[in-house]
């Protein structure tokens, strides 16, 4: 009984803080104010526009010793608690363990990171665009100002996750249950969001263009604080739901 009461109390407090306190955002931003964005060398292949990956002068596609790069990437991930300014783009990294790691300014573009674990991780200003993140666990992680455009999140777990100021354009969040999550200021335009559930989530200024909330989401999250964009042929209308 006590545990249930504590949980309810915690969720109410969480909800009130997340929903109504503008200072919370300021504190969040003050805590993680500075974000140095990535500065990687270009792939040495003259026709390539990609950036070079870790320990290589080439992008992953043009690297000659791909197995070695995969091993090195996995070693870097397992050996370091802080991952800063690494380019892992296109390197297959499925079943990796990022638990409790601090990840900032890293590239995971077009990576296969399926069935990985990001529990308790802090992810700031990192790029995961067009990656496969199926079956990945994001419980208790804090993700800010990161790019998840075109990512496949199907069967991933989001519980007590902070996912603010994130770019999730076109992300596949079909049938995902977000539980006690903060998705404020994140952008989910053109996301695949059929049957998604937001339970006790903060959706303040979360941007959607095509979303139908189920009863559970409407009752337990601040769905009326989202920004819904209605794109028609020549105009865009912005309104709250």
């Amino acid at each position: 009984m006590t545990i249930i009461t504590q949980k309810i109390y915690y969720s109410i407090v969480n909800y009130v803080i997340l929903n109504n306190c503008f200072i919370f955002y300021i504190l969040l931003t003050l805590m993680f104010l500075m974000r140095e964005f990535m500065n990687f060398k270009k792939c040495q292949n003259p026709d390539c526009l990609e950036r070079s990956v870790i320990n290589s002068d080439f992008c992953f596609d043009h690297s000659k010793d791909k197995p070695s790069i995969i091993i090195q990437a996995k070693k870097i991930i397992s050996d370091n608690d802080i991952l800063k300014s690494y380019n892992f783009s296109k390197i297959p990294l499925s079943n990796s363990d990022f638990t409790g790691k601090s990840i900032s300014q890293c590239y995971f573009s077009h990576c296969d990171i399926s069935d990985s674990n990001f529990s308790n991780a802090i992810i700031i200003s990192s790029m995961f665009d067009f990656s496969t993140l199926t079956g990945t666990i994001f419980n208790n992680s804090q993700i800010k100002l990161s790019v998840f455009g075109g990512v496949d999140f199907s069967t991933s777990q989001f519980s007590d996750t902070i996912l603010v100021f994130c770019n999730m354009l076109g992300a596949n969040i079909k049938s995902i249950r977000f539980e006690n999550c903060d998705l404020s200021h994140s952008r989910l335009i053109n996301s695949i969001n059929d049957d998604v559930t937001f339970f006790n989530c903060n959706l303040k200024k979360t941007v959607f263009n095509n979303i139908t909330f189920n009863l559970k989401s409407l009752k337990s999250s601040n769905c009326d604080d989202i920004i819904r964009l209605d794109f028609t042929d020549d105009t865009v209308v912005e309104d709250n739901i």
Partner: protein
Amino acid sequence: MKVFTIINPETISNIYFITDDNQKYGIIIDPGSFAINVYKEIKGIGAEIKMIIVTQNIPSKTRGIPLIKKIYDAEILSHNTDILNYKSKRIKEGDLITLGEIAGNVLETHLLSFDSISLVFGNSIFVGNLMEAGKFNSFKRSDKKSLIINQIIKKYFIELPYNTIIYPGKGPATTMEIELNFNPYFIRMKDANK
């Protein structure tokens, strides 16, 4: 060249600080109110502000300039020649901006106002309030604006490499690849070109 993003806590908008590789000097784009935390972060980076670029002459982007001018000997660049009470160097379409090893050029993206510009530095484009991830920022529900957006996309964005990082004035960064696939404006443009 390094790009730092600092959040302006008053308006929850982005301030960008571009420095050389050794973080000795830099350009600040849209300094906002230049709150104390922003100053501390810039001090932490260690680079001296040599140049201020304003992408649009509105108070939320310029309010902190007097303070910056007191601390640093920084030149102001904008499309508008008067920023607050300071004379600024006018920059226009195609102008090259150089500061040591940092080099970029100017695009006149007059969507929001006559003086709104965008800046291309390396494989990054700083668009100010022109757009946010997934949408362009002026939708006054008029066909004229829509037409201007189409012109801007055609003229400046379609030709950019797909891995160009777009740094908007508000919200998270995005890439051309994401925008081409999921931004309704770009999708419409692609469909029209088919």
